[in-house]
C-alpha cells in the first residue's frame, strides 16, 4: 500500500474543480478556462508521476479512506492503468487547451456548464482507469456517461435526439454492467478486482458467473461502441460540439477497451475467457466485422466528421481484435493502439474542429484549395490520415505491425487479411479527402494558380498548437514505440500469454 496522494489526486482535482466552476463562473466567466487548464495540468503531472512510480517500483495500491480491501475501495495502478491514465489526462488537457475559441463561438451562453461537464467527464474517465473495484468502476462509468450525454446534447440541431439515442443505449449498457456486478457479488461476496480474481477460479463452472461475464462484455461493448453495438455512435459524435467530439471520440471508446481488457484478463483469468468459453474467439470475429463494417460505411460518408465516426468504429475493432487474439503480440498491439488511436483521433477531430471554426465546412467536397488557406492544419490532417492508414513511420503503423504479428502467431490468416484490407480501405477513404484538399479543380489549373491567390487564413494559435502537439506525437511515438513497448506495455500484458 502506498501513502502517496497521487492516485487520488488524479481524480479529486478535476472533480472538486468541476464543482467550483459554476461558482467561479457565476462570479467571473473568464476564469473557468484557466481553472480547467490548471486542474487538468495537475492530473497530468500526477499521472506522469504515477507512471514513473509504477515503472520504478511496480504496482501501486492505494486504500481509499484507509479501509482495507476487499471491504474498502482500493485503487490499483499497474503498468496498464498508468499507461491509459496518462493517455486520458494528456489528451483531455490538449483538447481543453484547444476548446477555448470553439466553445466561445459555438456555445457562447453555456461556457460555464460546458467546462463543468467537461471536467466531470474527464473525472469519470480517469476514475474508471485508476479504480480496482468493480462497483466503483460502475460509478465512474456513469459519471462519465451522464456528463457525455449532456455534453453531446448541447450540440447542433440533431444533437438532442442523438444524445437521447446514446442515452438509451448507454443506459442499457450500464444496466448490463451493473447486473454483472450484482451477479458476481451474489456468488463471491466481493467487489474488489484482485479479490475476485482469487475467488473466481473455483466458480468458473457456475452459470451465474458465466452470465455475469456475458453481461460485462455486452455492457462494455455498448460503451465502447463495438460492432454491432455501435448504432448510437455516428449520430452522437457527428452532432456534438466540436470540442466535445474531440474529447469523447478519442477517449470514451479507449477507456471502454481498457475495461474490456481488465475484465477479460484480470478479473476473469485468461484460461476462463479463452479455454472454458470461446469468448476471445467470438470477440475476434466481432472485431473483424467491426473493422470491415466501419471502413466500408465510412466510404459512403461525405461529411468528414461522420466519416471519422465510422473510422472510429473500425479502430475500436482493431483494438478488440488485438484483445481477442489473446496472445502477447496481439495484446501489445491492442494496448499500443489505445495510445496511437487516441492520438490520431484527437488530431483528426481537432482538425475538423479547426476547419469548422474557420469556414463552417464539413463536406469533403467543399475542401477545395483548403491547403492554401490552412496549410499547417492540412499538413497535420495528412500526417494523421497516413497514421490511420498505417503508413510508417507514423505510430499507426506500429500498432498494426503488432496486430498482424499477433494474428500470424495465432495462425489466424483470415484476420491478417482483414487487417490489411482494412488498411487499404482506409487508404481509399483518406486519400479521397487528401485529393480534395490538395488538388485543385481544373479551372484553377489553367490559370496556373496565379489568379486564384488565396490568402492564408489559419486557425487561431490556441487550436493550432494542440493540433501540432498531437501531430508531433503521431510522428515521434511511432519511432519511440519500441521503447514504449519495452518499458511499459510488455509489463501490461498479463503474464502467461
Amino acid at each position: 500500500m502506498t501513502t502517496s496522494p497521487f492516485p487520488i489526486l488524479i481524480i479529486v482535482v478535476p472533480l472538486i474543480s468541476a464543482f467550483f466552476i459554476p461558482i467561479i463562473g457565476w462570479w467571473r466567466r473568464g476564469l473557468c478556462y484557466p481553472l480547467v487548464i490548471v486542474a487538468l495540468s495537475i492530473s497530468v503531472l500526477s499521472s506522469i508521476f504515477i507512471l514513473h512510480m509504477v515503472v520504478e517500483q511496480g504496482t501501486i495500491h492505494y486504500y481509499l479512506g484507509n479501509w482495507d480491501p476487499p471491504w474498502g475501495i482500493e485503487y490499483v495502478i499497474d503498468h496498464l492503468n498508468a499507461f491509459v491514465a496518462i493517455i486520458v489526462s494528456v489528451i483531455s488537457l490538449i483538447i481543453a487547451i484547444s476548446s477555448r475559441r470553439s466553445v466561445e463561438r459555438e456555445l457562447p451562453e453555456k461556457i460555464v456548464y460546458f467546462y463543468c461537464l467537461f471536467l466531470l467527464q474527464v473525472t469519470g474517465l480517469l476514475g474508471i482507469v485508476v479504480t480496482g473495484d468493480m462497483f466503483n468502476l460502475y460509478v465512474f462509468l456513469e459519471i462519465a456517461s451522464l456528463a457525455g450525454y449532456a455534453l453531446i446534447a448541447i450540440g447542433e440541431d440533431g444533437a438532442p435526439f442523438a444524445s437521447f439515442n446514446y442515452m438509451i443505449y448507454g443506459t442499457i449498457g450500464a444496466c448490463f454492467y451493473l447486473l454483472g456486478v450484482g451477479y458476481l457479488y451474489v456468488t463471491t461476496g466481493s467487489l474488489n478486482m484482485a479479490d475476485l480474481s482469487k475467488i473466481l477460479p473455483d466458480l468458473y463452472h457456475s452459470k451465474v458467473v458465466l452470465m455475469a461475464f456475458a453481461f460485462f462484455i455486452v455492457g462494455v461493448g455498448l460503451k465502447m461502441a463495438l460492432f454491432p453495438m455501435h448504432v448510437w455512435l455516428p449520430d452522437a459524435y457527428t452532432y456534438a460540439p466540436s470540442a466535445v467530439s474531440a474529447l469523447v471520440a478519442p477517449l470514451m471508446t479507449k477507456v471502454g477497451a481498457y475495461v474490456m481488457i481488465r475484465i477479460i484478463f484480470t478479473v476473469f483469468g485468461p484460461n476462463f475467457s479463452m479455454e472454458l468459453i470461446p469468448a476471445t474467439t467470438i470477440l475476434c470475429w466481432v472485431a473483424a466485422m467491426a473493422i470491415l463494417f466501419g471502413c466500408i460505411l465510412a466510404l459512403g460518408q461525405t461529411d468528414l466528421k461522420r466519416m471519422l465516426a465510422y473510422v472510429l468504429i473500425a479502430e475500436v475493432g482493431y483494438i478488440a481484435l488485438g484483445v481477442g487474439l489473446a496472445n502477447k503480440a496481439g495484446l501489445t498491439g491492442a494496448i499500443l493502439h489505445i495510445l496511437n488511436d487516441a492520438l490520431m483521433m484527437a488530431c483528426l477531430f481537432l482538425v475538423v474542429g479547426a476547419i469548422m471554426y474557420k469556414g463552417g465546412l464539413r463536406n469533403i467536397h467543399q475542401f477545395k484549395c483548403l491547403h492554401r488557406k490552412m496549410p499547417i492544419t492540412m499538413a497535420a490532417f495528412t500526417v494523421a490520415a497516413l497514421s490511420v492508414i498505417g503508413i510508417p513511420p507514423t505510430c499507426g503503423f506500429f500498432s498494426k505491425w503488432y496486430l498482424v504479428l499477433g494474428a500470424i502467431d495465432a495462425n489466424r490468416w483470415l484476420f491478417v487479411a482483414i487487417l490489411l484490407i482494412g488498411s487499404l480501405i482506409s487508404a481509399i477513404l483518406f486519400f479521397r479527402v487528401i485529393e480534395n484538399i490538395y488538388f485543385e479543380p481544373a479551372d484553377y489549373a489553367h490559370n496556373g494558380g496565379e489568379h486564384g491567390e488565396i490568402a492564408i487564413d489559419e486557425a487561431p494559435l490556441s487550436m493550432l498548437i494542440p493540433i501540432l502537439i498531437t501531430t508531433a506525437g503521431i510522428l515521434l511515438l511511432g519511432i519511440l514505440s519500441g521503447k514504449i513497448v519495452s518499458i511499459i506495455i510488455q509489463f501490461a500484458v498479463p503474464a502467461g500469454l
Partner: protein
Amino acid sequence: MEVVSSTRPLLAISVSVLAALFILLTGERRRNLRELWTILASLAKFSIVASMIPIVLAGKIIECTIIDLSPGIALQFRVDAFGIFFGTLASALWIATSIFSIGYMRGLNARAQTRYFFCFAFALNGALGVAFAGNLLTLFIFYEILTISTFPLVAHRETPEAIMGGRKYLAYLLTGAALVFFSMGLTYHLTGTLDFVGGGFLQGQGPSNILRLLFVTFILGFGTKAALIPIHEWLPTAMVAPTPVSALLHAVAVVKAGVFCVLRVVLYVFGPQLLSDLNLWLILAYFASFTIIVSGMLALAQDNLKRRLAFSTINNLAIIIMGAALLSPSAIIGGIFHIAGHGFMKITLFFVAGAIYVKTQKENVSELDGIGRAMPITMGSFAIGAMGIAGTPPVVGFISKWYLCLGSLEAKEIVFLFVLLTSVLLDIAYFFPIIYNSFFNRPQGRVNSGFDEASMLMVIPLTVCAIISVILGIAPDAFFHFFGIATLAAKNILGIC
C-alpha cells in the same frame, strides 16, 4: 566482415529531409533560393554517399543503429556493397535531375513547384533509406515514404488523367505494400529477426510450403513497384507525371527501389541455396522472362514516346530480376550492374523526351520526323542511350548484357540466353525507327530546320548522362567503382571471399 559504425548513412538520408523543409519554408516567392536548396542538398548527399564508397570497397560494412522499433528489430542502417551501389546511383542521378527539373519546370511555367521540389527531396530520402536499410522493417519504412512522396508527383498536373494516374499508382503500390507487410510479419514469425544476411537467413526456418507462399507474397508485393507484368499497369499510366519525375523516379529511384527490394529478398532473405532447394529460382526466372518478352512487344505498339520508354523500363527491370534469379556469379554481377547501367541510359532517354516536350510540345513517336535537325545534341544523346539499351558496344548496356548472357550459360539454362537476345532485337525494333526518323526523315509541316535546342539547363544534364553511359561502357569502374561494387556484392552473396 568488419563493421564500422558511423552516422554517415543517417546524414546522407537526412540531408534531403532538411532540404525538403527549407524548400517548403522558402516557397514560391524566392524560387532561386529554393532551387539552391535542391542543388546543395543533391551535391551534399552525393558527396556523403561517395565518401562511403572507399570504406565499402575495402570490404567493410558501415552501420548506424538509431533506436529499437520492436523487440529484436532496430531502426538500423547497414551500408553494404549492394546498398552503396544503389545509393550512389540514386544520389548521383539526383544531381542531374535537379538541374534538369529546374529547366523543365520553368520552361513549362508549371504550377505548385514548391510542392514538386519538396516531394522530390522527400522521395530521394526514401530511395536512399531503402538502399541503406539494414533490415526489412527499416526498408519497409522508407519504401512507404518513397511510395507516398511520389504520389503528389505523379498527379502533379492535376488534370483528370493525372489524378487517375495517381490513384492507380497508389492502388497498385499500397496493395503491394500490404503484401510486403504480411510477408514481413510472417518472416518475423518464422525467424524472430529481419536483418539482411548475404546469402539469406530463411534457410531451414519453416516448412517449405510456407516458405514458397512467403516467396510469392514477397515477389508480388515488391514486384508491383518493380512493375513485373501483369502488375505493371501503373507505370505506363504514371507517365502523365512531369518528365523529370518519370526520369528519376520511374527509371531510377522508385522502380529501381522495387527491383532493389526484390533482389534484397531473393539474395539476402532467401538466399541462393534456399531458392535452388525449393526450385523457386527457375519459376522466378521464367516469370521475369515472360515480362521481358511481353513488355518488349508492348513497347512496339506505343506511339507516345514516354509510354514506349516506360515499357522499355519494365523490360529492363525484368532483365535485372532475371539476372538475380539465375543465381550464377556472372548473372548476379550483370544484374546488379545493369541497375546502374540502365539508370544512366534510361534517364538520358527520358531527359530527351522532356526536352522535346518543352521545346515542341510533341509527345508522340510519329511526330518526331526530322527533329534531329533542330535538336542534334538531344537526339544524338537519345541515339547513344537507345543503342546502349539495345546492348551495342561501347555503351554501358553491352557490359551488363554480356555478363547476363554469360550468367545464363553458367546456370546451364540456354533458354534465358535466347530470351536476352530476343529482347535485344525487340529493343532495336522499337528504338531504331525513332533515331532513323528523327535524323533522316523530312520534318512534317513548317518546322524550324535550323539549330534550335532546348534550354541549356536541360541539354547539359542529358548530354552528361549520355557521355557517362559511354564512359561506363569503356571503363565500367570509372568514377563510382560500380563494377567493383557489383562484384563485391555478388561475392558477398555467394559466400566467395
